[in-house]
């Protein structure tokens, strides 16, 4: 019997291996496509304005320098005497039009991603040294629960929300993580 079993395995083996390869490639492709939907949001000016690579935030969809030489400060929350919270509160302020969310401030310099290609952003997001020390689960949690991220979809009057719906973005994040967080070529 044993030769027959071996023969049967030899006959089916390559087919099974091919199927697995196809499946892995498909799963990777799904993950890459999910990241494409993620990066369309993450590279939006709304995110880049606070994920800067320098000492200043930027403003608006044209990413002009933040008015009045506003600076990052040592703790990413503004200058001594001129904190981000001098003007930005924990929610949008309709009376003044000033946007706000809990923890308003710049992302740490290590989490800046101005000028990144989608691939470079992807690699950065998977690197704890470039994502605030998070594993993939914590990264997905940050994107799902951080008040400043959520603000992107509720930016207040006069600002268009990020053009990918929040639910679709978070679904893409979940799928990307499930598919092993593959990066585009």
């Amino acid at each position, binding site marked *: 019997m044993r030769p027959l079993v071996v023969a049967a395995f030899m006959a089916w083996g390559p087919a099974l291996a091919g199927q697995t390869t196809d499946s892995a490639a498909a799963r990777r492709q799904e993950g890459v496509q999910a990241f494409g939907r993620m990066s369309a949001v993450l590279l939006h000016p709304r995110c880049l304005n606070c994920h800067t690579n320098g000492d200043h935030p930027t403003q608006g969809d044209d990413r002009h320098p933040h008015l009045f030489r506003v600076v990052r400060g040592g703790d990413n929350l503004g200058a001594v005497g001129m904190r981000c919270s001098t003007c930005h509160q924990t929610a949008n302020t309709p*009376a003044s039009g000033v946007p706000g969310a809990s923890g308003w401030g710049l992302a740490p310099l290590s989490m800046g991603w101005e000028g990144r290609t989608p691939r470079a952003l992807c690699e950065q997001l998977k690197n704890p040294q470039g994502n605030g020390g998070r594993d993939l689960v914590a990264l997905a949690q940050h994107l799902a629960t951080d008040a400043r991220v959520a603000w992107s979809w509720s930016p207040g009057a006069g600002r268009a929300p990020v053009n990918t719906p929040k639910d679709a973005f978070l679904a893409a994040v979940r799928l990307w993580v499930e598919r092993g967080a593959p990066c585009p070529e």
Partner: protein
Amino acid sequence: MLELNVNGTIHQVDVEDDTPLLWVLREQLGLSGTKFGCGIAACGACTVHVDGQAVRSCSFPAAAAGGRSITTIEGLSPDRSHPVQQAWIQEQVPQCGYCQSGMIMAAAALLKERPAPSEAEIDAAMTNLCRCGTYARVRRAIHRAAATGPGR
């Protein structure tokens, strides 16, 4: 009713939660030293302190001030003796004066944390606008206050 601690006095005010603190100070409490300038948190004329930090009160919802300590220009000192106020007089900083209560509050907040600020720290902290262009005198007065203030 909202309870506010302004200049050490507790006030009960009946306002909508999102009413800017500036309007409560000026219209409910009659503290008109704090000015309305731009209304979009850009000019700094409405600067007051909340728990010692400078905030633009035109963009600060009254409800967020509940349970916190608010200081306006009227409460910076009982007799205009605060080192920043004295330095402002010595340097003859104001021209029209409209922005100056906000300038003084911003400078006082800076000096509380940085008793001897550098030029760069002054530049970063003092973003208030002055249509008379008193900026050079503001800078001199901050250095004077730093040399004479409680931080010395």
